[in-house]
């Protein structure tokens, strides 16, 4: 079974521009929808409140791993750690990595998230239960939002 997510997207923007959007904490927060408290520093936690309406009480947290300018940015986190009453810190995190490559039209960005084999079974079961209704509605909200603010 596949236990890694990998996505590649071509961006019509130079590598330097994409690097800034990924690693400047304010720019990252714009598209990722999180109000980070400070800059990304390798080895240090990055945290901030989600800016998605209705979820402002949720704190997003990651630990920055690698920052190789215009090449690689990675952090570890707990995917979907959105329940404020749960302490996720004891659970093994997954690794998120962005890799940038220059192409004639701009930048090829490859995203990987790995380490799902360590995600606790009960978390996956929750995702399964939540998949009905709630998640479908949330996806619609996101699509509407993106369509309104392209």
């Amino acid at each position, binding site marked *: 079974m596949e236990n890694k997510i990998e996505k590649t997207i071509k961006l019509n923007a130079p590598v330097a521009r994409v690097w800034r959007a990924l690693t400047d904490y304010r720019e990252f927060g714009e598209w990722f929808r999180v109000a980070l408290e400070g800059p990304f520093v390798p080895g240090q936690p990055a945290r901030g409140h989600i800016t998605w309406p209705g979820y402002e009480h949720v704190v997003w947290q990651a630990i920055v791993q690698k920052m190789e300018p215009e090449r690689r940015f990675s952090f570890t986190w707990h995917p979907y750690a959105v329940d404020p009453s749960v302490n996720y810190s004891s659970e093994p995190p997954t690794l998120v990595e962005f890799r940038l490559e220059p192409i004639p039209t701009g930048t090829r960005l490859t995203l990987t998230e790995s380490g799902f084999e360590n995600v606790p*079974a009960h978390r*996956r079961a929750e995702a399964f239960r939540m998949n009905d209704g709630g998640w479908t509605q949330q996806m619609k909200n996101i699509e509407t939002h993106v369509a309104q603010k*392209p």
Partner: protein
Amino acid sequence: MLPKSHKRARSPRPQQAILFAALGDDTRLALMAKLVSGKPASIAQLGVGSSLTRQAITKHLRVLERAGLVHSVRSGRERQFAFDPRPLHAMQHYLVRVSQQWDQALVRLKSFVET
């Protein structure tokens, strides 16, 4: 990028994921392959055509049971073991959800850097 808020029900099951560990073994995969194809089977039936001892099969089945991939039911004097696909479905749904959220985030990133 967020799922609907929910009430958390603490599972009595072990906290650590053991699904991948359970599947990461050729012997257990072979046992699974026998069970996936159909009816529940006893330890004796699972041992047909293999060199595994009864004890070894029992041990491997226990690992699969802990991962929720196999459930046993008593049938007369013997226990029968049946495949349960639900943990695999849960894993699949989880990854699909994570994957969809990344799709949406990357769409936002694209419009962010291209405008």
